[in-house]
């Protein structure tokens, strides 16, 4: 028995992001318990070092440094927002650490010290919009892009605009509007969307609204009587966890695109859910896509450590590429050389019970394109 292997947990437990990130902290702790239950890794125990970066981005950088320099963690699971990732990235690169980032994001990034286990835009946003434009999705001809004003929605929407233009939807048929974090008064914007939809073409909403702002947004959609069959809204940041705080009855039929839904059938997900329920001991707590990405990342990391027979970052990194795992989403995912995963894409409809009913999925996994072809500048990017 050697010294324990340490993994850092870098998720906000207080401040605005605690809402989303505490569940990921729980997931990592669950996985640590899981691996120790199996006798540990390389015959050593795994130990989690939990810190609270408190939704404060510079504090993320400080805590990352502390995890690497003081606690000498072998791998870190953490971050939710893109800015927190951007803030720790130089630290991980300087100190050659390893970060697993579990949330869908805007792409345009690739670091040898980060493994991205959430979706790139082509694994979520683009398939979702394709669906909206299909017969099944309602033949949308006009798209309202609503987002929180930060880089993920901005970039995603830029990519989507490029994609829509390439599909013959002109700028006149695209509405784009941004709100601050935690925006709570959606009356005006929802009314404007209604008006936008009143131009005689089938309209859909693509929401990159993040976090807290979603509850008041959906309430307003419901109260202003926007029905999914008239103006469907597909969201990229609303999962089971977010729905748990909303009365979903007026929202049935609105959509979300993810790489995992809790309602997915099949053994891998059942195992995941069993593990979660046993760990959290609260039947009301749900699972969601970033949790699954955390789970997948953790499992792949243990596989890579076992393959490399060491926790040294350089060796594990080499072993990570090509790791495969039958993920809870029911597909075999693979870590690609660009440090992103291949993932399936699902579209789910909100149900009255707060779960998603899957109405569409990709036939097989999609490889991550972290450098989107719809951003022209990527063409002359340095490779």
């Amino acid at each position: 028995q050697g010294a324990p292997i340490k993994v850092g947990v870098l998720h906000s437990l207080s401040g605005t992001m605690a809402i989303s990130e505490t569940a990921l902290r729980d997931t990592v702790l669950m996985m640590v318990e899981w691996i120790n239950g199996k006798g540990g890794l390389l015959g050593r125990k795994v130990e989690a070092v939990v810190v609270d970066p408190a939704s404060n981005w510079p504090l993320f950088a400080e805590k990352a440094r502390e995890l690497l320099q003081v606690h000498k963690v072998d791998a870190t699971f953490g971050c939710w927002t893109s800015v927190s990732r951007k803030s720790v990235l130089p630290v991980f690169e300087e100190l050659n650490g390893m970060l697993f980032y579990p949330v869908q994001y805007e792409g345009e990034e690739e670091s040898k010290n980060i493994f991205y286990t959430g979706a790139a835009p082509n694994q979520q946003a683009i398939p979702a919009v394709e669906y909206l434009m299909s017969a099944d999705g309602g033949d949308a001809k006009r798209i309202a892009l609503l987002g929180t004003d930060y880089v993920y929605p901005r970039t995603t929407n830029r990519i989507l605009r490029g994609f829509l233009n390439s599909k013959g939807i002109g700028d006149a048929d695209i509405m784009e509007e941004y709100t601050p974090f935690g925006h709570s008064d959606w009356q005006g914007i929802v009314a404007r969307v209604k008006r936008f939809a009143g131009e005689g073409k089938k309209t859909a909403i693509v929401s990159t609204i993040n976090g807290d702002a979603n509850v008041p947004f959906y309430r307003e959609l419901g109260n202003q009587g926007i029905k999914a069959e008239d103006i469907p809204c597909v969201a990229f940041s609303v999962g089971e966890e977010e729905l748990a705080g909303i009365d979903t009855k007026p929202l049935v039929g609105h959509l979300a695109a993810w790489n995992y839904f809790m309602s997915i059938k099949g053994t891998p997900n059942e195992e995941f859910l069993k593990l979660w329920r046993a760990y959290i001991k609260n039947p009301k707590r749900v699972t969601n896509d970033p949790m699954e990405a955390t789970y997948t990342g953790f499992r792949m990391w243990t596989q890579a450590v076992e393959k490399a027979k060491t926790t040294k970052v350089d060796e594990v990194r080499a072993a990570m590429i090509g790791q495969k795992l039958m993920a809870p989403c029911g597909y075999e995912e693979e870590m690609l050389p660009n440090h992103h995963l291949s993932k399936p894409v699902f579209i789910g409809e909100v149900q009255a019970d707060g779960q998603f009913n899957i109405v569409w999925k990709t036939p097989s996994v999609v490889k991550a394109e972290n450098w989107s072809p719809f951003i022209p500048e990527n063409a002359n990017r340095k490779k």
Partner: protein
Amino acid sequence: MLGAVLLLAVLPALNRLPADSALHVSDFIVSVSGKWITYAILALAIDLAWGYAGILSLGHGAFFALGGYAIGMHLMRLIGPRGVYGHPTLPDFMVFLGYKELPWYWLGFDHFPFAILMAMAVPGLLAAVVGYLAFRSRITGVYFSIITQAMTYALMLAFFRNDMGFGGNNGFTDFKELLGMPLNTPTARSALFYASLALLVLSYAICSRITQSKLGRVLVAIRDAESRVRFLGYDVTQHKLFVFVLSAVLAGLAGALYVPQVGIINPGEFSPGNSIEAVIWVAVGGRGTLVGALLGAFSVNALKTWLTTVAPDLWLFALGGLFVAVTLFLPRGLIGLVSKVTK
């Protein structure tokens, strides 16, 4: 004070000792204490305005952040073609948000002296405008506090906007070098550390010169009975403006040193909560004494760093409890406690 400065001054040297030495100080401590020093300068600046002149600004974080943005812009420009898109002048975020050329207000920031000048001038100018308008109209007390809070809040919202050309929510990160030094090296870190320390000593000297002069007494008089000071023939607006602008400039410089050390500047620095926290450092340390401000900044931040790791779920209780306890039981802050004990 002198002892504390000396202790800080040898930190990087102690860091070079072998790791098993009893006096060894870890890399981490060196890098966070550089950051704390910049916080201490901010606290000093706040104390000068609040503790002496009674100007409680709940927006000092804005001056700090503006100084940080100024140097951040310089750092971004220094990245040059090393960005992922290889654009010779445009920072990455501008490239993928589709900017074609550099906005005019980014010009000049490729020169270090200009950036440092801006790190002082922009906060100073903002303070001069806000201060002049407010002091002239005799906005005092909580009104002023809330105005400054609105100021930083408005700036936060504005800087969050991607369209402002300051990188929106992400702000600036992934800096490469400063004055030819690669930033992610121990040398650069100790250089920044000493620069911060030097600024701290300088700020302390300026502040104590002021507080010990008659100007300091005029400020205290303004704090206690502003209108009476006017009837003695003092132009209150001028005096207040003088300290407020000076305080903002110090805060801006502190921010300029902070950013290269933490590696990121983003609109979160404008959040009103940050400014309030900085005021709390002063209150915890002991308002109205310069040493108190320093003590407060160091102790609260050290405690926060420590607690967010040892008690990630409970640290807010401990820190919140500390704020309550200090205001309640130590009306003169930690410094009051220290002087009581030494007596």
